[in-house]
Each structure stands twice: as C-alpha cells, then as structure tokens.
C-alpha cells in the first residue's frame, strides 16, 4: 500500500512506511471541465495538468483567483471528479472507479479556507468523532489522541468550546488538529489563512511551518508569498487552469521564465 522502505523520521508525523523521496502524489494529464449551468457557461478549470509530489515534500501552489488551484487540490482527494487523466496517491489510484474513496480520503488531510468544523460539536468532539466513526478507534484512544493534537496546535484549553465560540484562527487550528489526528500521509491546505483576521494568520502559518519541518508531505494553496518563499521545496504557479511555472522558490521568485509569472509576482509584491 505505502512505498517500500519504512524509514521512520524520528519527529515525523507522516505515516510510517513512506520513505522520503518516493513519489507520494502523482497527477498525470488531468483535465477538468465544469459543465455549463443556467447562469454560467462551461469552464475548463484544469487543462492537462501534471504534477508529482515526493514524500516529505512541501509544494506551494500560487496563482490568481480562478486559476484552478482549489480545483487541482480537490481532485487529489476526489472531492472533485476529473474528466481525464490519472491521480495516484501513495499507491491508491484515486481515479479508479473501484477505489474506496472514503477509506482513501481518511488517509489525506484537508484544511479548508472556511475550516468546516462540525458546528454542533465542541473542539474536542470535532477531533474525536472522525477517529471513532471513520478509523473505528475506541473512544478512549480517540480521546487521548485528540488531547495530544489539540495540545500540539495550542487549543487544549479551548477543547470544550463550540466552533462559534472560537476565533477564525482558533477554529483553523482545531481543524488542523482534527486532520492530523487521522494520521494522514498527506496534508492539503486550501487558502487556510485567507479567511482569518490578520492577527491570527501568523499562528496558523507557524503551525504549518512546524508540520513541514516534521516531514509532512504537503500541498499548500496560499497567497502568503513569504510562506511560499520560506517553506516551499517547490513553488507552482498556475494560471487559467494550467501550470505555467514550477521550480524552487529561488527559481520562481527570482528568476521566473514566464512573463505571466513575473506579472503576477509583481502584483502580489
């Protein structure tokens, strides 16, 4: 199921059995078109996109609004169906009809712009419930785990608060704890800080930086260029449904080959 090897990074949260450097996410020639509806013409959201992410790698996707970043991220855990191409994540062929998608998704953590915490559950229950309902862990084990990850994101004192009683930044940290408690092999972040008050952005970015340092495989869509420059192993620039440029932060930020990339970077500073 996982890659060969089984080298355990001492500090890594990443599932055991993934050797760093092996291919974790393999996206090949993916095309995705949103069909026309009553109030919108059809749109090509992904136009022949290919991307591989190695185990332990942090790939940051940047690009203007509407360029297909979210769509690409959401195809990785099959929240969005694709028209053609293949996607393989740690041996699971996501695009294969026979794949048990819920079981697969439980191995991929996703963090949303608007958190999507369960509104009728406390922070603690938000972290416990998926472990019990999906991973079939005992309540006691799930509780211990939840405590551990809430402490990691600095939210243990607020464990008994409902989402409506937490700030955006606090909710997002609980959402990250909830995803981590499932022991994901990969974490996907879709503009995790875009909906936050400026003063809470830093805490969430620090947490993401910490995860990256622990060897988590991450695909991060963000407008935080500092974060991209600092944390990314690779930066991907998307425009109009296609990957226009890809390389180390140095290559993309200092030495972009495409005019479109340079223009975008000059606009976002």
């Amino acid at each position: 199921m996982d890659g060969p090897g089984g080298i355990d990074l001492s500090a890594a949260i990443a599932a055991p059995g993934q050797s760093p450097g092996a291919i974790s996410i393999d996206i090949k020639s993916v095309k995705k078109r949103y069909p026309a509806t009553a109030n919108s013409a059809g749109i090509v959201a992904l136009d022949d996109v290919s991307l591989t992410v190695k185990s332990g790698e942090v790939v940051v996707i940047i690009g203007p609004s509407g360029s297909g970043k979210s769509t690409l991220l959401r195809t990785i855990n099959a929240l969005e169906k694709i028209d053609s191409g293949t996607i393989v994540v740690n041996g699971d062929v996501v695009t294969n009809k026979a794949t048990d998608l819920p079981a697969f998704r439980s191995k991929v953590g996703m963090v949303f712009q608007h958190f999507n915490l369960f509104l009728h559950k406390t922070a603690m229950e938000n972290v416990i419930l998926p472990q019990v309902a999906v991973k079939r862990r005992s309540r006691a084990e799930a509780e211990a785990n939840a405590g551990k990850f809430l402490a990691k994101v600095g939210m243990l004192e607020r464990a008994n608060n409902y989402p409506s009683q937490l700030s955006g930044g606090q909710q997002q940290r609980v959402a990250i704890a909830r995803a981590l408690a499932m022991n994901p092999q990969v974490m996907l972040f879709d503009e995790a800080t875009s909906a936050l008050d400026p003063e809470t952005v830093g805490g969430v970015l620090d947490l993401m930086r910490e995860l990256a340092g622990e060897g988590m495989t991450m695909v991060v869509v963000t407008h935080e260029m500092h974060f991209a420059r600092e944390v990314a192993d690779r930066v991907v620039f998307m425009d109009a449904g296609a990957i226009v440029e890809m390389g180390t932060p140095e290559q993309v930020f200092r030495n972009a080959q495409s005019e479109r990339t340079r223009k975008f970077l000059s606009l976002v500073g």
Partner: protein
Amino acid sequence: MIGQFLDFLGADLAHYWKIAAAVMPALLKGFVETLKLALVGILWGSFLGGTLGILRGQHIRVATPLIGAYLHLLRGTPFLVQLYVIYFVLPNTGYSWLQWDSQTAAFVSLGIYTSSYVTEIVSGAIRAIPRGQWEGAFALGFNRLKTLRLIILPQSIGLILPALGGVYVTLIKATSIVSVVGIVELMRQADISIVRFPGDILYIYFLAGALYFAFCFPVLMIVGRLEERSKNGRMVRA
C-alpha cells in the same frame, strides 16, 4: 331580581350537564377514532416524508425531480380531492390491492398528506446546512450515510421539530374531513349528536372543539420541549 337570575343560571347549568352526559360517550368514541387516524397518519406519513425529505435534501439525479413532482401534485390539490381519488377512483382501476375499506383509505390518504409537508420540512432543513459541513466530513473519510447521520441530521433537527408540530396539528384537524368516506370520528359524532339535540348546536360543537384542543395542545407542547432540548448543547454564541 338577582335571585331570578341565579335560578335561571342554575337551570341552565343543569341543562348543560344533562346534554354533556348524553353526548360525551359518543364524542369520546369519536375522539378515540380521531386519535387513531391522526397517530397512524403521523407515524407513517413522517416515516415516508422523512425518507423522501432526506433524498430530496441532497442532489440525487433521478430522485430529486421525481419527489418534486410528487410534492407539487399533493400540495397543489385539496386533501378532500386526494381522499376521493384514493377511496372512490383507485378501486375503479380494477386492481384488487387498490380496493380499500374506508379506514385503510383514510390511513393512506392522511399519511400521504402528512408526508408532503414532512418532505418539504426535512429537505429544507437539510439544505439549510452549509455545504462545508458535507465537505468537511467527506474529506475526513465519512461516507454519505455517516455524514447524514452524524453531521447533517443532528444539525437539521432543531429546524425540523418546530415545523413538525405545526404539521401534526394541521393533520389532526384534517382528520375531520375523512368523515365523508363514512368514518365516524369526532366531528361525525358531533354531527350525529346534534341531530339528537338540535337546540344545542353551539354547545356540542364547543365540546368537540375542546376535545380537538385537548389533543393538539399537548402535541405543540411536546414538540416545543424537544425543540428546546435540541437547542441546548448546540451552538451557544459567545
């Protein structure tokens, strides 16, 4: 003068007692029949409506438009017409399993009538839950059923319960209509009693009304309680 008035009142009270004693056994028998009709209608109508509502609350290719048509048909026609179709028209189709006695026809039509309202309530409540709740659950590996059971329905219930109370009361009152297919429920018993005591129309209707109220009021109370309870332990705004 005052003595005269008291005499008059005394005579009147005695008269009311006499009438009540005479008609109450019949009214109570009718009340039991009404109770039965309402309970059966509520139970299976809620089951059918709950199922259809859960289907309609999601976007399912065939089910959603089909259920929509079912709702339009039921909500766009009077209950009396539905009852007539079920009792008088269906038997003419010639299928033996559609030949129902009046009580079965009443049960079926009351349940279908209830289901049309319950379907709308349940599907509306499900659609009122933000899309992100589904996505958050899916991304964690919940399947559709688990998401419904653990995430969506618990959040919808606070919207469903108060609306159900209104529907159930509407249904209890609608049971009075099924007397037209020969069911002797509370309203029909009242009419029969009036033939016996034509001088006390108003009073007999008052007694029947009191019995309906005695049924409807607790229903509203219970649903109100449940609503309160489902709100506690839910979101408390900081």
